[in-house]
């Protein structure tokens, strides 16, 4: 049944499983679940200061506010006061100290959502203010950090290599954070059950983590808590750990009042309370020869992690693991500082540090190409890892010692250069720019090599539960969550293909910790790789049982039983899948099975930075053209061409949708999306009025996206590849194109910082043009 020529629904461009529900408004999100009788609503009272101690709290006005049923503080929490996904350093409600503006201090329980919000503004709290640590410089000076010191990965002797190199460049690069801006804000609903058990619906990428934290908070084993997630209105990493506070609050309040409790953040609260993409400052030094061959690179990563550890260590690790991107660097050193500041606790965000690491080396390549006057694509190609069929380098390993065996970018780059007409357009742009004084165009290419697997190796496992009912209908469940990426449909396509049935036979069901336990977050692009394989295993178990029973009855070899086109073919006999299921049921064959998968081959040491953290790599390449205005720095994208590697795609249309959306999101990160904190640590961009994600007209005028005709050499589900995060990095091409356009105003290297807002571009043009 691994025959790729007859895959059933696999590889078909089917729409999202809930598309019809989406367009009719019938798709249910947490806040749409019909409200249980007597449901109460929650809101946090939050800290207005970045650092200090609570001296006294007067919550009498909060309690007296209309509709308020209860007001809880840390003293009212019955068990663990912690919502951290990592090291228990994140109290649900302040334990007496506050560590960032927006930290929850008390919890209002009221009869209405707006009543709870209104009451939450009425707390009178006296704080003893302390001097906060807000910037990375302040944190470095105070040695305020996570872990005992910087993590350092080294290969060879880069300092010596750079010092001895014919040429070198150095610089510093600021990279801003990013708000997830999932359209559905964080939300949870808890229904108290008999015997203090709790049923929680949560908009989360990680139901098991919600279950774990709720169980801790109400002092019960995990078996007493069941968490269900049908869908999220977007996640992007922002719902990997940030939903804990709401779900735990609902459970605590439900336990306290005996009533159902619901909590959703207003958008401003959501942006002020929750974590975002990590800001980075990357300082670099690179040595190379006159042909542009890299000889040695040194990176110094500083990252602002915020007040709690959350997932910052693996995020910063992944930035280090992507500091090479597509390039074989003979000698390299990466030093990473994870800085603790009195700001929101930065968290997972699509790419999980990878994009920050990758844009660092792409900046270096941009700088080197400028220094040598060499075409930036040619420079990159010269430094690519070797293709598996054309090994030239003696050493084709990454800085962490992993052999690169699946490198696709040589062929992909050549194909994209041709389809995008890169060379001719670059010449035409140069000519056009000569005739312009105020406007300049720029064009840039950027490649992506993104490592696939959780770097915390034990997370690379997944479970599934599949039932075939006696009428031949199939109930499908697995540990992955649906946040819009189309995971449920892709996995259902796998299930339908294994049973040889149509998609209408498969019932997709909500993620449920009572059906599949001990799941990992749907993160790290792993959803279809892990859950697709687990579902395949479950389906094949049932199918093999069916085949064995039917072949015995029909006196043929079990291996000759085929499941295709809604039929089961047993030797010369043919019956519908429904008949087969019915016969198996009557023959007392179990038609239910779990399935389990763990990723093979991955093993590494994150302290040494050595080993194989990734099962394989996903690749991509983009070429973006922009125009900028020197008078104002205003800029926009004119054209984008993308070629992306999804292996043998499970669903090419859904994968292209991921690529298009990720590119625009990645571009937003590096252009208009600017997070601004004031000097008191208060976030000033906490709503879509002030924080600008790309709007409709910001997408490229011309936007060509294609999938590479490839096949994963590793044994993944139908040889497909993960597609969630890798294409996010394609947005780097926009940033480099802006740098290219800016460089047309003068001779100096632009050294553009991110995000490249109009103001940032304007300032950089002035520096390039006037040296100021």
């Amino acid at each position, binding site marked *: 049944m691994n025959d790729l020529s007859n895959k059933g629904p696999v590889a078909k461009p089917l729409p999202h499983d*809930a598309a019809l529900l989406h*367009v009719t408004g019938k798709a249910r999100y947490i806040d749409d679940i019909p409200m249980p009788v007597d449901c109460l609503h929650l809101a946090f009272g939050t800290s207005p200061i970045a650092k200090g101690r609570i001296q006294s709290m007067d919550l009498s006005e909060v309690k007296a506010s209309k509709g308020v049923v209860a007001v809880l503080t840390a003293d009212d929490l019955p068990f663990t006061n912690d919502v951290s996904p990592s090291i228990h350093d994140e109290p649900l409600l302040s334990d007496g100290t506050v560590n960032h503006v927006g930290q929850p201090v008390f919890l209002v329980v009221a009869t209405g959502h707006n009543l709870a919000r209104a009451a939450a503004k009425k707390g009178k709290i006296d704080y003893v203010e302390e001097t906060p640590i807000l910037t990375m410089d302040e944190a470095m000076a105070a040695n305020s950090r996570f872990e005992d010191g910087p993590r350092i990965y080294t290969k060879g002797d880069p300092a010596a290599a750079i010092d001895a190199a014919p040429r070198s460049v150095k610089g510093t690069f600021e990279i801003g954070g990013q708000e997830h801006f*999932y359209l559905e804000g964080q939300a949870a609903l808890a229904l108290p059950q008999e015997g203090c058990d709790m049923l929680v619906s949560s908009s989360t990428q990680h139901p098991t983590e919600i279950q774990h934290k709720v169980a801790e908070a109400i002092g019960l084993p995990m078996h007493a808590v069941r968490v269900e997630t049908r869908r999220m209105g*977007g*996640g992007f990493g922002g719902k990997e750990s940030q939903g804990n506070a709401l779900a735990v609050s609902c459970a605590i309040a439900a336990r306290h009042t005996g009533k159902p409790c619901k909590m959703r953040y207003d958008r401003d609260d959501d942006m002020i309370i929750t974590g975002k993409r990590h800001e980075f400052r990357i300082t670099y030094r690179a040595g190379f020869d006159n042909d542009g061959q890299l000889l040695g690179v040194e990176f110094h990563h500083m990252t602002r992690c915020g007040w709690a550890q959350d997932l910052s260590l693996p995020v910063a690790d992944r930035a280090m693991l992507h500091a090479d991107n597509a390039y074989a660097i003979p000698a390299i050193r990466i030093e990473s500082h994870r800085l603790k500041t009195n700001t929101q606790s930065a968290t997972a965000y699509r790419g999980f540090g990878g994009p920050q690491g990758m844009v660092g080396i792409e900046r270096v390549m941009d700088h080197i190409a400028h220094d040598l006057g060499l075409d930036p694509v040619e420079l990159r190609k010269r430094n690519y890892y070797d293709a598996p069929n054309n090994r030239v380098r003696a050493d084709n390993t990454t800085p962490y010692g992993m052999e690169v065996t699946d490198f696709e970018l040589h062929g992909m780059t050549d194909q994209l250069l041709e389809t995008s007409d890169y060379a001719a357009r670059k010449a035409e742009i140069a000519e056009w720019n000569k005739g312009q004084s105020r406007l300049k165009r720029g064009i840039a290419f950027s490649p992506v090599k993104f490592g696939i697997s959780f770097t915390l190796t034990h997370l690379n496992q997944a479970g599934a539960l599949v039932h075939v009912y006696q009428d031949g209908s199939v109930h499908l469940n697995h540990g992955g969550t649906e946040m819009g990426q189309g995971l449920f449909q892709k996995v259902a396509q796998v299930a339908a293909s294994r049973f040889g049935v149509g998609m209408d036979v498969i019932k997709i069901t909500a993620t449920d910790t009572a059906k599949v336990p001990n799941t990992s977050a749907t993160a790290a692009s792993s959803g279809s790789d892990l859950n697709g394989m687990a579902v395949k295993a479950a389906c094949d178990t049932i199918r093999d049982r069916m085949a064995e029973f039917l072949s015995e009855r029909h006196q043929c070899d079990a291996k000759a039983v085929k499941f295709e086109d809604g039929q089961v073919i047993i030797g010369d006999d043919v019956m519908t899948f429904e008949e087969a299921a019915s016969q198996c049921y009557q023959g007392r064959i179990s038609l239910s099975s779990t399935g389990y998968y763990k990723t093979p081959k991955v093993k590494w040491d994150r302290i040494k930075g050595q080993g194989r953290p990734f099962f394989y790599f996903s690749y991509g390449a983009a070429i973006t053209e922009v125009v900028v205005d020197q008078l104002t720095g205003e800029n926009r994208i004119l054209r984008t061409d993308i070629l992306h590697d999804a292996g043998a795609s499970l669903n090419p249309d859904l994968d292209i949708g991921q690529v298009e*959306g990720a590119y625009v999101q990645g571009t937003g990160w590096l252009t208009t999306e600017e997070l601004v904190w004031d000097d008191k640590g208060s976030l000033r961009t906490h709503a*879509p009025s002030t924080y*600008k994600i790309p709007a409709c*007209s*910001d997408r490229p005028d011309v936007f060509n996206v294609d999938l590479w005709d490839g096949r994963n050499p590793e044994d993944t589900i139908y040889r497909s590849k993960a597609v969630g995060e890798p294409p996010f990095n394609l947005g780097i091409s926009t940033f480099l194109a802006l740098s290219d356009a800016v460089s047309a105003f003068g001779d100096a290297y632009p050294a553009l910082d991110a995000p490249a807002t109009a103001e940032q571009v304007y300032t950089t043009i002035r520096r390039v043009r006037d040296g100021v």
Partner: protein
Amino acid sequence: MPAISSTSHRRMAIRQNNVTRRVSTMTITFHLNGEEVTLPDAEPTVTLLDWLREERHLTGTKEGCNEGDCGACTVMVTDPNGSKSLNSCILFLPQLNGKSVRTVEGVASDTGELHPVQQEMITHHGSQCGFCTPGFVMSMVTAHKNGATDHDDQLAGNLCRCTGYAPIIRAAEAVEEQPVPVWIKKEGTELPAPANAGEFSPRSSDELAKVYADNPDAVLVAGATDVGLWVTKGMRQLDPVIFLEGCADLKQIEVTDTRVRLGAMVDMNAMREVIEPLHPSYGEMIRRYASMPVRNAATVGGNIANGSPIGDNPPALIALGATLHLRKGDSRRDIALEDFFIEYGKQDRAAGEFVEAVSFPRQADTLRVYKISKRFDQDISAVLGAFNVTVDNGTVASARIAFGGMAGTPHRATHVENALIGQPWTEETVTKAMAEFGKDYTPMTDMRASADYRLDSASNLLARYFAEMNGETTSVLEVAI
């Protein structure tokens, strides 16, 4: 928050210190997905979104931001002037009196046949997480009904974080040639008679003048694109509230040979239609001034009366030499618009006085209006510059230059103007005049821009103006490949 306001009121603080009054409710009648609804006791500041979701359990309409900036809550509202998209999160129930509302639940036919927009959104993979989708569907259904194909503009107020918009635009294009379904076509052909909502919902400016004179502490609500946020974000209790929607005479537009006069309740799209042929650059600015659903609600009068230093209309109108027409009771007065803005938060408006209209003289089009913001569409300006320079025989005859975002109020660049007037219209004059901006403005640094950037880009916009008047391509928006 949207850059637009739609009310005039500055006495809330005083009133809030008084004892809270009983919230005065209103009776209203409207159609909801074809069914007549009468609410005998509509609370004036309950939003349509909350009412739909909490009272009617119509949860297809989503709350994404609760401030009119993301479009997840978009609905189609039809009145005698036609159908328009509106943000239901900042739309108060009394604004619907006599109108028809259609939500995503009412877009397919009674028998379940999908609207072509819905079908094409499925076919072209226009939804991923699906949360923004109902809002997109409603904007697209409205645009399709109105025959609009400027999709980027129609959808500028709908944010999607998943798709990158490309598949949504493919869906919109695929719908263009398809007929409007009969059940949507007939929407609005039979509108309900508006209920008598009482004196706080006046039907004319005369009625308004009376009720406002009697209740000078009242909050005036026009489109609610600013006041809506006082409620949804500020959690303020507003009472009494006077809804201007029924004042038909305030929606009048008069264009004569000598003047253009816009009633205070003219919405920004209606204004754009008038301005576009006369002053195309200003028309384009109005397009970018806010998204379609915000422009459908926001009014000329509101944007002036709230006195925002970053409102986009006042600088352009000041550059055109506009006059503001104010009324209190039966007395009226006219002042130059620039004199209305006294200082930040303070306007030349007496208690009980309201903006009746704004007017400006017809003139040759030498006006150019430049909006600088982080994002081109649906963004509040960092700097908004309006330039109106006339040249006679190579010499600058007159100059009216006004800016928003550069001071506590919309403000003229007097020194710059003086450096231009009487001088030859040359690059040298322009360069000299550019150095004068620092005398006119001391802008501030905030999350939108730094003071330096504001000052630099403001003066550079004069260079852009000079180049544009010389026929050069000056904007990145004009470059196409």
